């Protein structure tokens, strides 16, 4: 076998920076962090539930993902929850106007429980699907031992038959905006006899 002349060593190939791989990895991390929680929460959610009876003449239907978390005895009420968002629905016999009912709720329920409380100054008028007209305020406050501030909206409605209904949609501050459409939809569709 003839011996080949010794070849000069080849230069090492140029270092190829992997420019796309880390960018794809970062993109995957961003997508996973931003949308992962919503996907997981949806997976944990449940289908639209059956109507929940709040009181003798009030019935609320939870939307998809909302579930009955708690019942209140006096006055009768329920708490529907979806993630960090909650909707408390309370019913009682009431002789005054919806604005009066709203004022009593702020004075007798929100203010005593709150370390700090800011309530919107103007009442806003809302109309339910049934045609009933109610009043709405919004609030932000610190309640009890809970560290995070809570924001919420309260709607009071009084039916012609004297049934007062209070809707308090609340969540940790900053989160309510994401659930507000569903809260308003459930309030609007509540059946009040």
């Amino acid at each position: 076998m003839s011996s080949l002349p010794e070849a000069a060593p080849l230069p090492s190939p140029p270092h190829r920076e992997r420019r796309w791989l880390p960018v794809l990895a970062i993109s995957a991390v961003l997508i996973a962090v931003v949308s992962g929680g919503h996907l997981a929460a949806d997976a944990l959610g449940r289908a639209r539930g059956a109507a929940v009876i709040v009181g003798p003449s009030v019935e609320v239907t939870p939307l998809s993902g909302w579930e009955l978390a708690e019942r209140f005895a006096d006055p009768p009420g329920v708490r529907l929850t979806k993630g960090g968002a909650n909707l408390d629905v309370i019913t009682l016999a009431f002789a005054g106007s919806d604005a009066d009912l709203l004022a009593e709720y702020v004075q007798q329920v929100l203010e005593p429980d709150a370390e700090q409380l800011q309530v919107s100054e103007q009442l806003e008028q809302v109309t339910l699907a049934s045609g009933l007209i109610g009043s709405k305020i919004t609030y932000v406050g610190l309640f009890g031992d809970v560290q995070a501030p809570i924001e919420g909206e309260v709607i009071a409605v009084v039916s012609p038959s004297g049934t007062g209904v209070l809707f308090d949609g609340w969540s940790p501050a900053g989160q309510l905006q994401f659930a507000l459409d569903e809260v308003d939809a459930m309030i609007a569709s509540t059946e009040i006899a």
Partner: protein
Amino acid sequence: MASLPVARLPRRGWGRRTSLFQWRQPAFWLYAVVVSITAVYAVGQQQIFHELSPSGWALSWGLLLVYGLPVFLAIYLLDLYEREPMSLVLGALVWGAVAATVMSGIANEGWGLVVARLGGPVFAAEWTAALTAPVVEETLKGAGVVLIYLIARDEMDDIMDGFVYGAMVGLGFTLVEDVFYFIAIFGGTTGGVLAGFYVRVISSGLYGHVLYTGLTGIGIAYFASRRGEATVGRRVAVAVGLFAAAVGAHFLWNSPLLNFFPASLDDLGDWLQFPVGAALKGLPLLVFVVVLVRLAHRRERMWLGAALRSETDTPALTAGELQVLLDPRAKRRSRRVMRHRAGVAAQRLLKRLQREQVNLAMMRTRAHADDAPEVARQRELCKSLRDGLLAIPGATPAAGEPSP
């Protein structure tokens, strides 16, 4: 100070200047796309705040500028010898202010739903901020530091660089988050904004996102810059460990644990109690980061000394000048003395000479040989600057010798 050979302290990219706008880097385009999309939402959010309380919004930004500008300068000037390119520094700030805040808002909501779904509403109200925000926000802010590194790899050549970029991301994040708190939580009134400024900036401004992301940045820079010096396992362990420390500190801050904050700000005692409560939660991390930054400074000084020691035999640098260069206080003092002795022009020339001597160190670490043409040219530049300085009446003692 230990004298280490230059070869054992490689800094591949020292002295190079890369801008943010690297059109051929995929990382730049990811950065640009994410910032552009999130900017639409961020601007919309600021418009809402402005509409809710125009004066409160303006006061919020005014106060935050008073806080943010000095912090920005302090972070930027921390890198003693090789300041980072301004476009990259601002790029980091914008990522934190725009991309990270917007994405965090969306992500926190989603993961908050998961916590509430699994733990119930009462548990969620108390723990969501602690369980979601630290991981979500530190990841999204850290992604910005990684993108900056991918855009300009040569710029992140030591852990100090990682701290600077990380802290800038954190600063951008905290400024926008503070505006949200001042308007949405503290009410946006003059009193509310001032109370928010006291609570979030005066009492706790030293402990928040700047430190968390600075820590994450140190870990990323360690991983990126210690190739060849440390094993992959060690680099990963340090990067993951520092990220975990940032998440842990953020968790402690957001959680009800060790909570000595007053429930409300009703009297003077409550106002005084707030900074104490904040210090209890935040001071240990601040001390830890200060120690890391001092270690990074020490390492930078070692690099500079190792790179320039042999130059004291050349006309470019004297042994006395090297001693002054290695001590930032002595460097500032020497300029003051020069101004006093020989006037402003001499002070400026000395500053230029010292800057070019640091550039000489950077060139030496990049050059393949001691007598490389660019090194020789830089030596000549330094020599001519010193000659020019010594020609100024009164400049002689302060130029050649360490300042008193």
